[in-house]
C-alpha cells in the first residue's frame, strides 16, 4: 500500500533521515520504534508531505505521491494523527471533528462518520461543544484519533498515541488501535512504548540516528537482544 524508497530528508540544512526503505501492506499494523531524536517524526512528516523529501520516492496505492502537497495526500486517504494531539484548542470538539472531514472527498460521508466516532467515543458526544483545549490528555487523544477517523483514512499514521497518558488510558488506546485495524484501516504506529507497539505489530522497523537498523515481525523483534541494546546501550 505504501512503498518508501531511499527517502532522505531533514530540516533546513541538517539531514535527519538517511536512505529509508519501508513497505506497508494493506490491512496490517506496522510499528516504527526508536529512541528520541532518531528521526521518527521526520520520517512520517516526510510521508505526510509536511517536509519535502530531499531524495527518494513515496508511493501510495501504486501512485507516486512524492511531489504532492499534504492536502492532496489527505484527499487520497493518507492521514496522520500528529504527536501531542495537535487539536485546535480554541475550536469545539465538534468543530475539530468537522475539520477532520475537511477534504472534499469525504464531506459527503461527514454525518455518517460523525455518528461512527461518537459511537466509538461517547464521551466526545457528551462534550461536543466544549473547547478542545479544555480536555484532559486522554480525552484529547480520543478526540485526535476521532478527528483522523473522520477523514476515512486508508492509511492512518499514529505518532506517539500513548505519550503522556496514564497506564489505564494507554491500554484503552491500544484497544482502539486494534479496533481500527479490524475496520480495515492500515496503520503505521510510531511509539516509544516499544513493548506494546511490537506486540501489536505485524511488522516493525527500528530507527536509529536516522537509519533503519532492524526490521522484522513484531514478535521477532521483541526477542531481539540488539533492541535492548539500542534502547539502553548496555
Amino acid at each position, binding site marked *: 500500500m505504501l512503498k518508501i524508497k531511499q527517502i532522505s530528508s531533514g530540516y533546513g540544512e541538517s539531514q535527519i533521515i538517511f536512505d529509508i526503505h519501508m513497505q506497508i501492506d494493506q490491512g496490517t499494523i506496522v510499528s516504527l520504534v526508536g529512541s528520541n531524536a532518531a528521526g521518527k517524526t521526520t520520517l512520517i512528516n516526510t510521508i*505526510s508531505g509536511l517536509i519535502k523529501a530531499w531524495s527518494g520516492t513515496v508511493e501510495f496505492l501504486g501512485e507516486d505521491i512524492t511531489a504532492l502537497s*499534504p492536502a492532496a495526500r*489527505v484527499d487520497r486517504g493518507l492521514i496522520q494523527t500528529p504527536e501531542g494531539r495537535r487539536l*485546535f484548542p*480554541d475550536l469545539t470538539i465538534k468543530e475539530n471533528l468537522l475539520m477532520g472531514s475537511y477534504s472534499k472527498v469525504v464531506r459527503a460521508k461527514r454525518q455518517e462518520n460523525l455518528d461512527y466516532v461518537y459511537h466509538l467515543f461517547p464521551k466526545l458526544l457528551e462534550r461536543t461543544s466544549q473547547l478542545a483545549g479544555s480536555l484532559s490528555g486522554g480525552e484529547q487523544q480520543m478526540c485526535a484519533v476521532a478527528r483522523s477517523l473522520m477523514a476515512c483514512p486508508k492509511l492512518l499514521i499514529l505518532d506517539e498515541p500513548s505519550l503522556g497518558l496514564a497506564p489505564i488510558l494507554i491500554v484503552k488506546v491500544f484497544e482502539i488501535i486494534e479496533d481500527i485495524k479490524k475496520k480495515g484501516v492500515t496503520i503505521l504506529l510510531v511509539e516509544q512504548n516499544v513493548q506494546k507497539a511490537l506486540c501489536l505489530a505485524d511488522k516493525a522497523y527500528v530507527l536509529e540516528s536516522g537509519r533503519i537498523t532492524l526490521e522484522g515481525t513484531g514478535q521477532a523483534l521483541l526477542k531481539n537482544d540488539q533492541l535492548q541494546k539500542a534502547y539502553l546501550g548496555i
Partner: protein
Amino acid sequence: MLIQLLISGIMLGGVYALTSIGLSLIFGVSKIVNFAHGDFVVVGMYITYSVYQATGLSPYLSWIVVIPCSVFLGYLVFLLLKRTIGVQEVNQIFITLGLSMVIQNVILMVFKSDYRTIRTIFKNNIKIGDIFLTREGLLAFLIAIVITVVFLWFLNKTDTGRAMKAVSQDRSAAHLMGVRVGGIDLLVFCLGIVFAGIAGSLLITMFAAYPTSGGVYNLLAWVTVVMGGLGNVVGALFAAFLIGIIEIVSGYYLGADMRQVVYYVFFVIILILRPQGLFSGIKFINRKVKTNEAH
C-alpha cells in the same frame, strides 16, 4: 449630550470595525504584520471618490469597482509577502512600510494632495428625540455591522471559515486535515483588503481623504487589533466601538485635534500593561501570541 456622544461613537466604531477585522484576520491567521493596512482603506476611499466623480455612482454601489480592485491589489501584495510568512517578521514590516510609501505617493501623484470627500448624498440629518445622526453615518454603521455579522457567521459555520480558524491555531495540524494552507493565506489576505476597501468607501462619505491619511487608519487599525487581543476578531469589533466612543467623547471635551492623542496614549498603555488585549477573554480566533519576550 453624553448619550449623543456615545451613539455617535458607536456609529463611528462600526465603520472602524471593518478596518480592524481585516487586519486582525490577516494577522491572526497568517501572522502577517501588515503596516500598510490603512493605505488600503485610503485606496478604497479614492476609488469610490473617482467612481463617483466619473460616473456619479453612489458610494454604496461603487463596491462593484472597489471589491475587484481590492482583490487584485490583495493578490499582488500577497505575492510579495508570501515567502515571508512565518519566517521573516522584520521583512514583513519593511515590505509593508515600503508598500505604504508606494501607495501614498502614487495617490499623491494621481490625485494631488488636496482633500477629497463625497458629502452630497444626503441633505438632512435624522433626529430621534434629542439625538442627531447623520444619514451617512447611520448607513455606514448598518452596512459595516451587517458585513461583520455575515463574516462571523461565515467564520463559524462554513468549512472554509473553520479552516481559517484552524490555520490560525495550528498551521501544520491544518495541513494534516487536508487544508490548502497557502490558499487560506491568500483568501484571508484578499478578504482583509476587501474589508479595508469597503471601509474606505463608507468613510469617504464622512471624512476627507488625502494621500497620507493611510497613516492614521493604519495606526487606528493596529490600536483596535491590539486592544481586541491579537487575532481576536470579536475583540477587535468591541475595541473598534470603544475607539469610536473615545474618539468622539475626547474630541468633544478636549477638541478635535486631541481625540487621537487620547487613544494613542490608551494604546501605549495597553501595549505595556495588557499586551494580550482587553478582550482576550472572548476566545474566537485568539492565538496565543506573546508580545513580551521572556528575560
